[in-house]
């Protein structure tokens, strides 16, 4: 069964505008409807694995019209988006009861999902910018959803930096249009292969890197993330850290660099350096934090570094003309880490939400001994921590192992050393979380704490099971070939993208 691609965007978009009409009385109905939407998107994403398809909107043939492209990379990202959003939506069914205006929250949530699906599917660079803005605007509003002092401040900071990033992207789109005369990514790629890069296109590539780098919170551009992600409600933190920065930042950057402009040694090294900086700086800053969610936000910066490092390593190896198998191993590591991080970081943020809801605080110094009071939260948090640290057989271990092997194989021994070193820093971070939140003495005022019930537990257990099972994605050859290999192939094929899209 083939699923029409516009449904991925149309269903959440239509529901998002329908939900505010439910008002206060229809809160339960709105929640059920929103959950149905995210779960049906999950089903669609699973059904679309392994398919490649081009959809021309309104039957206008490209390059006249806008097209949606589903290829290996898109379906991998679609799957990640729908898994995280289904879990976060399930979690918010109960968690968001403490806020007013739940219907508006659900509507913004679905708007963000629609924007991200659009970014992933779009084959037109201006359309990509439009969806990027839809997702970003929804996320600005969601960060400030609580409307308290900290939330408004974080939201403003995020919005200023995010808007600057978006404007850079728009400027780059304008430059690309001026130099190539088309907005379709396949045709831009063809025009660039035909005429080569000129100064204007180089500038456009630089603007794309900064713009998407701001969205992805790579280290020189990371200032907004540690404020914005902790201030949002927990399910939204899970969405932002788990998937939004990857879709708007990493995916868009990889698509533009690999498939539209073509890789070069300089851009490959730029990505490697950005990745390493993010890894090291994020890890060091995270260790010193005492706010639970802030620690996790900094660790997101560090983990995003791994993904960018893997992709940059692949780009450098392809540009050098080295063995393609080495390059694809590095990219495989990066993309696999992206999916893994989406699952375990969203799980970590959900557990932090559960802890916050039970205890009413995020400060680790005021907690302790919660292991007995919150047994399921504790177990899922430990599974996620083990994954992020990279303890076998949990998922994080395999992606880090692949990255280390790829770095050693390409004879970048120092990069492999840094990867292992940052893993150690991550271990310290999450030992600290375990020690101060779940072990130790239970403070007086937390004696009455109770475990959360219902949908919150279901969401956390679902993600924890995924954490354990994700390793199978690389260990079982069939799964690897169905899900990860096509995504890697899209990037290693590079500029063949334009021929592929036109041929479909």
């Amino acid at each position, binding site marked *: 069964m083939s699923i029409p691609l516009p449904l991925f965007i149309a269903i959440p978009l239509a529901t998002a505008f329908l939900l505010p009409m439910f008002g206060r009385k229809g809160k339960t109905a709105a929640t059920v409807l929103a959950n149905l939407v995210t779960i049906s998107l999950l089903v669609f994403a699973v059904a679309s694995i392994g398919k490649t398809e081009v959809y021309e909107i309104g039957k206008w043939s490209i390059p006249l019209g806008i097209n949606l492209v589903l290829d290996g990379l898109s379906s991998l990202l679609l799957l990640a988006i729908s898994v995280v959003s289904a879990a976060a939506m399930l979690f918010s069914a109960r968690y968001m009861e403490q806020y007013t205006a739940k219907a508006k929250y659900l509507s913004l949530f679905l708007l963000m999902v629609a924007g991200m699906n659009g970014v992933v599917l779009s084959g037109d660079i*201006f359309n990509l910018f*439009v969806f990027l*803005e839809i997702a970003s*605007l929804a996320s*600005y*509003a969601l960060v*400030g959803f609580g*409307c*308290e*002092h*900290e939330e*408004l*401040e*974080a*939201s*403003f*900071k995020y*919005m*200023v930096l995010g*808007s*600057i990033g*978006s*404007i850079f992207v*728009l*400027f780059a*789109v*304008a430059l690309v*249009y*001026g130099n190539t005369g088309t*907005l379709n990514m396949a045709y831009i790629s063809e025009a660039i292969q035909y005429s080569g890069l000129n100064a204007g296109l180089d500038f456009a590539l630089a603007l794309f890197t900064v713009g998407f780098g701001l969205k992805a919170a790579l280290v020189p551009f990371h200032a907004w993330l*540690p*404020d914005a992600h902790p*201030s949002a409600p927990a399910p939204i933190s899970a969405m932002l850290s788990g998937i939004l920065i990857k879709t708007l930042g990493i995916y868009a950057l990889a698509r533009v660099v690999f498939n539209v402009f073509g890789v070069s040694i300089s851009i490959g090294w730029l990505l490697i350096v950005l990745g390493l900086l993010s890894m090291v700086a994020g890890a060091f800053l995270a260790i*010193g*934090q005492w*706010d639970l969610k*802030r620690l996790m936000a900094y660790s997101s910066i560090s983990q995003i570094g791994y993904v960018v490092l893997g992709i940059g390593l692949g780009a450098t190896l392809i540009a050098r003309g080295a063995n393609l198998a080495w390059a694809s191993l590095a990219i495989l590591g990066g993309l696999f880490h992206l999916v893994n991080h989406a699952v375990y970081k969203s799980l970590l943020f959900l557990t932090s939400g559960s802890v916050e809801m039970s205890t009413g605080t995020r400060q680790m110094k005021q907690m302790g001994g919660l292991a007995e009071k919150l047994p399921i939260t504790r177990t899922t948090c430990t599974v996620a921590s083990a994954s992020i640290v990279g303890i076998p057989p949990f998922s994080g271990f395999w992606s880090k192992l692949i990255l280390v092997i790829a770095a050693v194989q390409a004879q970048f021994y120092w990069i492999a050393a840094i990867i292992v070193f940052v893993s150690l820093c991550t271990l310290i971070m999450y030992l600290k979380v375990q020690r101060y939140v779940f072990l130790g003495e239970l403070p007086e005022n937390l004696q009455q704490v109770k475990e959360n019930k219902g949908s919150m537990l279901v969401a956390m257990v679902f993600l924890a099971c995924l954490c354990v099972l994700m390793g199978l994605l690389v260990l079982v050859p069939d799964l690897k070939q169905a899900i990860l290999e096509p995504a890697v192939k899209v990037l290693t094929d590079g500029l063949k993208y334009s021929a592929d899209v036109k041929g479909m």
Partner: protein
Amino acid sequence: MPYSLCFLLFMLGLYCAVVKKNMVKIVVGIMVMEYAVNLFLIMLGFRFGGEAPIIGRSHVDSETGQIVASFLNSSVDPLPQALVLTAIVISLGSLALMISICIRTYEKYGTFDITQIRRLKG
């Protein structure tokens, strides 16, 4: 020359957004950047003595049924204008959200000065 002036406008907006301490001025700076980019897009489609790209009866050669060359050489590219319209609508949305957050922040903190709005650190 017009392009460099447009770029200057962009840089002015960026300077304003980065350096100013007042929240509203930061928003103004971002909007100046946005308009500079819109202006750039419009200039891409500009043509001296251009005409609207709408094919009327007078533009079609009555004998061959082809579009006459003078029309092809003087009609302007309509796409940048469509892009600018979209971009303006998007920037309107983000402007509305930014201003409303500014107002809510003012209600909470009683000031627009970002050096005094610093609860988040570290």
